[in-house]
């Protein structure tokens, strides 16, 4: 009896211990996992890696299912490019090897050659900016699929657009035109590119042809956007030429369209003569459709109401014949769309919408500014600098401080530090409360390895605005680059005294971890 009783007590005790372990264990897991997450965050992301780099080995290991494996790798390519674009990363190191693996596993997977070459050739941030790698991929595709003439078209396209090698582009178009089933258009392109490589007309013909024969909605949309961009680029070029001629003859920049008219360069102030009410209606409808893209399904009811209201408003405007007002509205809608696209990180669409707005109202500065923001987001620095004269003209001869700051940013990213500094110094002199030029100036000095000047600039702005996150990071980076690692960490420690948003704090911690290593 006593033994039984002891056994029963021991059993109960064992059960209680087990319960304590189970509950205590689960409770302890929580902080441990949090600790692991924090450590991993501080360590940063693990670099992309390919563990198997030979398509032939993978093909053998697949035991006859290499087609399925190729599909999986192709999906991985798509996800890889998508994630890089979402995170605004410009590092596409694994794209080439992934595409090579995909096409080695299935040499007839045509989409991998066609889209893969676009991903590879497109300049960052949209793609890897590796046109040579794209050429290699397409050449492999042509060897594996000699009768598929579209790969020749893509090859010629990369020579034409990305490498500006018109002689080779013409040669490739000609070779492709001799493939079975090739459209007559290829031969025409070969002749046109050989005769007028680099001209807008040729680009327009190329994109028009792609639009007509695209079997994929994304490619068709891309062609529409490029055609719109070419159209506006033409207008911008003509306007810039006029302004340059005016400046050369008058010795100063024109301040308004009226001055150009008076000087005989323009017959009249541009009034969008080609665009009528019907066009406004169409553009307005498209702008409304673009506006509501990406809206979650939860809000779709409100979206339908909003869309209906906007369509009704556009219809009414058309009916009453409010032509000028309608065009303004369409331009405004494009501008709003562009701004929303920038917020959502859809820079390609932002650019296209901004171009449309500028196309509708080329005399309105706000649309040019929207276009400038989109160009900056797309890192089209040279293109933005080309618009310098237009901005000067529309600003009335003197650039607005935000416009000037954008140009300084372009010079900085293009490595023309002296020009960037000249603008920032001027901006600081004009308005000592405007913080952005200080930060840019500090960064420029730092890039020039003038660490003492950079430190002075950052300290100057931090005395005024101690919670300027960019300035704190810039100064810490300057210290770090100057070899004063302790000062960098000390500065980041001192930020604890000030009120910074949680995102900034997280970034400071990451920087501390980096400098501490």
């Amino acid at each position, binding site marked *: 009896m006593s033994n039984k009783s002891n056994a029963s007590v021991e059993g109960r005790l064992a059960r209680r211990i087990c319960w304590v372990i189970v509950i205590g264990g689960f409770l302890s897991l929580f902080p441990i996992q949090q600790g692991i997450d924090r450590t991993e965050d501080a360590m940063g992301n693990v670099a992309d890696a390919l563990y198997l780099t030979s398509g032939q080995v993978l093909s053998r290991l697949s035991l*006859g299912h290499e087609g399925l494996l190729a599909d999986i790798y192709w999906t991985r390519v798509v996800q890889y490019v998508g994630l890089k674009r979402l995170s605004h990363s410009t590092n596409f190191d694994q794209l080439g090897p992934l595409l090579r693996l995909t096409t080695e596993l299935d040499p007839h997977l045509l*989409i991998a050659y066609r*889209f893969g070459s676009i991903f590879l050739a497109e300049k960052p941030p949209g793609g890897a900016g590796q046109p040579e790698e794209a050429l290699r991929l397409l050449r492999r595709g042509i060897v594996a699929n000699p009768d598929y003439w579209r790969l020749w078209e893509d090859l010629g396209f990369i020579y034409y657009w990305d490498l500006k090698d018109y002689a080779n582009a013409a040669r490739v178009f000609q070779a492709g035109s001799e493939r079975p089933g090739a459209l007559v258009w290829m031969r025409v392109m070969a002749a046109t590119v050989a005769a007028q490589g680099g001209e807008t007309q040729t680009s327009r013909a190329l994109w028009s042809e792609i639009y007509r024969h695209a079997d994929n909605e994304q490619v068709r949309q891309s062609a529409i956007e490029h055609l719109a961009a070419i159209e506006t680029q033409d207008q911008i070029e003509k306007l810039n030429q006029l302004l340059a001629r005016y400046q050369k003859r008058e010795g100063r920049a024109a301040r308004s369209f009226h001055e150009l008219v008076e000087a005989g360069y323009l017959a009249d102030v541009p009034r969008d003569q080609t665009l009528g009410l019907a066009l406004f209606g169409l553009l307005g409808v498209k702008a409304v459709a673009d506006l509501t893209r990406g809206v979650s399904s939860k809000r779709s009811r409100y979206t339908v109401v909003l869309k209906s209201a906007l369509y009704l408003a556009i219809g009414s405007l058309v009916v009453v014949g409010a032509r000028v007002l309608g065009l303004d509205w369409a331009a405004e809608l494009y501008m709003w769309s562009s701004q929303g696209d920038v917020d959502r990180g859809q820079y390609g669409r932002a650019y296209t919408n901004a171009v449309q707005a500028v196309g509708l109202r080329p005399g309105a500065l706000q649309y040019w500014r929207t276009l400038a923001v989109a160009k900056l987001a797309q890192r089209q620095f040279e293109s933005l600098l080309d618009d310098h004269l237009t901005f000067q003209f529309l600003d009335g001869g003197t650039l607005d401080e935000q416009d000037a700051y954008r140009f300084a940013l372009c010079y900085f990213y293009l490595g023309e530090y002296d020009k960037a500094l000249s603008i920032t110094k001027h901006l600081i002199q004009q308005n000592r409360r405007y913080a952005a030029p200080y930060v840019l100036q500090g960064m420029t000095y730092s890039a020039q390895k003038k660490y003492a000047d950079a430190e002075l600039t950052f300290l100057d702005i931090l005395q005024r605005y101690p919670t300027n996150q960019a300035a704190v990071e810039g100064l810490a980076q300057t210290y770090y680059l100057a070899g004063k690692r302790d000062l960098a960490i000390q500065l980041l420690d001192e930020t604890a005294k000030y009120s910074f948003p949680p995102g900034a704090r997280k970034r400071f911690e990451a920087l501390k971890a980096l400098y501490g290593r």
Partner: protein
Amino acid sequence: MKSVRRIAVIALQNFKESVRERVLYNLIVFALLLIGAAILFGRISVGVEQIILVNLGLSSISAFGLLMAIFIGISLVWKEIDRRTIYSILAKPVRRPEFIIGKYFGLVGTLLINTAIMTTGFYVALLYDKGRLELSDFRALGAVYMILLQLALVVGVALLFSCISTPILSAVFTLCVYVIGNFLNDIRWFGQETNSAWVEKLTTFLYYLLPNFGNFNVISRTAHGESVPGYLLLSNSLYTLLYLAILISAAILIFEEREFR
């Protein structure tokens, strides 16, 4: 004629017994789920929606068919010996070769039905994805036929090992033969690359001796809309028939020599 009837009876009994295996249903359900999921996989890629559907669908039929062939095939004979039901069967006027052939056809019949179910699932998924089926979509049936030939050969190998060994070892041996059978081209290439006449002869001998499962790999081509050439269907059918005759004969020889006490 009586012999054929006895084989048919054993095959039918074996078919009924195989169909009762629960694991079979699980495998079919899993295969059908995977085929259905191919529609979703296509959505996260670009431009290869249908290729993924065909590749994944046919690969599922092949892979799950292979699992069924191995895991049921390995216990075909062993189970009868282990349960001692073999005594009551052989006590009846049933010859040992009839027993082996009947067992084989019973399992092949099971696989035929299962493959038909999975193929129907595949075409339902294709119909859902495309909205309608075209004549060219039925080219995939050529690949399904090749998969069936492959499975028939695997069952033959499993049956042979089932007469010799325990289920676990039989499964390992069958899987090894299947993997090696997929690498036969590489094995022969390796022999040619060594520049040794002796090694080359050995690898060439192995190339012709072992079942070449690489012959049946046409899924990738089918996914790109190509049909399986008629000569390939015919020559692979002849190859399978011949190899099966060898395997079943070898199994009968071994089974004839076994003593049951």
